[in-house]
């Protein structure tokens, strides 16, 4: 493995901390939306890592700035997947909210009934 340059290391650390923050948020956050966001942060971290790696592998070669095309493609695909997953999750969340409000509404009524 080649020597890691300072900026690369920085990028790597950023990616790692993104993942860590995401994981923390995923584990802690009780709200579903927060969990979805946490997942997005993790995926952002991973994609960042991929981009950095694409950079690094080409760094040793002759052409300085051309990144690894395979990883680029992978990141693109991953983004598409992540976006669609997020969209689906949000849709599901919406239905969850809807159903929980439907379910809790009669419940509240029941609780208030005796007072009235």
């Amino acid at each position, binding site marked *: *493995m080649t020597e890691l340059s300072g900026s690369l290391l920085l990028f790597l650390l950023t990616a790692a901390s993104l*993942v860590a923050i995401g994981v923390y948020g*995923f584990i802690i956050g009780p709200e*579903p939306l927060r*969990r*979805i966001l946490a*997942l997005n942060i*993790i*995926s952002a971290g*991973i994609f960042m*890592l*991929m981009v950095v*790696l694409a950079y*690094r*592998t080409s760094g040793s070669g002759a052409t300085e700035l051309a990144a*690894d095309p*395979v*990883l680029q493609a*992978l990141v693109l*695909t*991953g983004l598409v*997947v992540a976006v*669609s*997953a997020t969209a*689906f*999750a949000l849709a*599901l*969340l919406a*239905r*969850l909210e809807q*159903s*929980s409000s*439907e*379910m809790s509404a009669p419940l509240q009524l029941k609780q208030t009934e005796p007072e009235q």
Partner: protein
Amino acid sequence: MMILLLVLPLLSALLMLLWPRIAPLLALFSAAASSLLALQLLLQVAEQGTRYWLLAGWPSGLAIAWQADTLSCLLILLSTVLQLLVGLYAFATRSRDKLSQGFWPLSTLLQLSLTALWLSRDLFNLYVCLELLGLVAVALVSLSGRKAIKPAFNYLLLSLFGSLCYLLGVVLLYGAYGLLDIAGLASQWQAGWLSNSALLLMSLGLMLKAAIWPLHAWLPAAHAAAPAPVSALLSALVVKGPLFILCLLWLQLASTSQAQAMAPLFAAAGLAALLFGGWSALRTPFAKNLVAYSTVAQLGYATLALGLMLTFDQPLIFAALWLFVLAHALAKAACFLAIGEMSATLGGKRLTILKGASQTMPLAMFAFAVAGGSLIGLPPSGGFLAKWALLQGLWLQGEQLFWPLALVFATLLSAAYVFRVVVLAFDRADPVAPDFAPQLVPQWLALLPALAVWAMALFSEPLLLLLRLEAL
């Protein structure tokens, strides 16, 4: 032929979106056609050996690589046939169960993603399939309405989390080796902290998705909440996808030292799953939860077999692993369909509704019992075949006492929960009256896979041969 297997479901799913009216017919047609294709592919592969195919003619390394070996073909055949059966069941009960129209395209997509998964031998490609599989599965679970949303959402979150773990592992590996296809990676593999942590990340992600103990917590709720045909598909097929990848990783990638270090953990996890899942299934008051917990337990067999395979490197154990998967898929589909049918007809989720079911719905109960027999491993069922192969593999290693006896004990647990249902069904004291006249066709459809799993034993020799060839 492989391309047809992929294109056919994709096309029919698209067509379904255009013509929702004929969606059921399209789905059934695509499943039936795929089954025939899969059978033909299996015969071809069995005769001529493994086939490779690169998408769109790109060179190897860049292109998406597909590989059809006997195991893949068997699994494809299994998924298409089950798809067809479940489709037929859903079609037969459509007027009663009010399944949303979404079921047909989604199930076809499920078939697509599974087929793709069985054929892929490329880590990233596998990731995409896995993600697609997870999303489709969650969507299917959410079909059953309000009460299913919460489990579905949990399932989704954990599934995405697991996928991300897997992806992170893939990325680490790519960073280290610059390769994605498994064969290539295996040839350059070095045991080190990087490959260790990548393997660990991927495995844990996959275990979460495959609901392997102790990461199974999401499964019972999700499977129990889904409509009966969906539960059948989920338990029979979906959890097997990540398991397949897990096996690929450990059997083809991992070095011997890594495998040896990990083997006891897998075996222990498998045993724990057997015990825990079995116990939970024995105690749960709900019918579908029982079957779902049984899935957790039965996956334990596969995990255990994987662990033992890593320890002993015995082709028979490998065969046993996949025999478990095949037998479990068929049996579990039958169980879920039968239980679903009975809950629908007798009206209720609790196990107690099955009181006297042997009189009111003898066929469905029979289907459950027959499938249960395979789960227990009574001869001459598929489950027996798998257990036999596992025991043979173990005994060939010499004086092994612990694992065979552990297996016996675990099997007793599975017998206990299966017969918990059967005994209830024979209760003549106060049988639960059906809400409406039981339908015959769905019951027969539930019985079919159960009979198929017993028929597996008749083809035991070719099956064992095929699977053993694979390992070598």
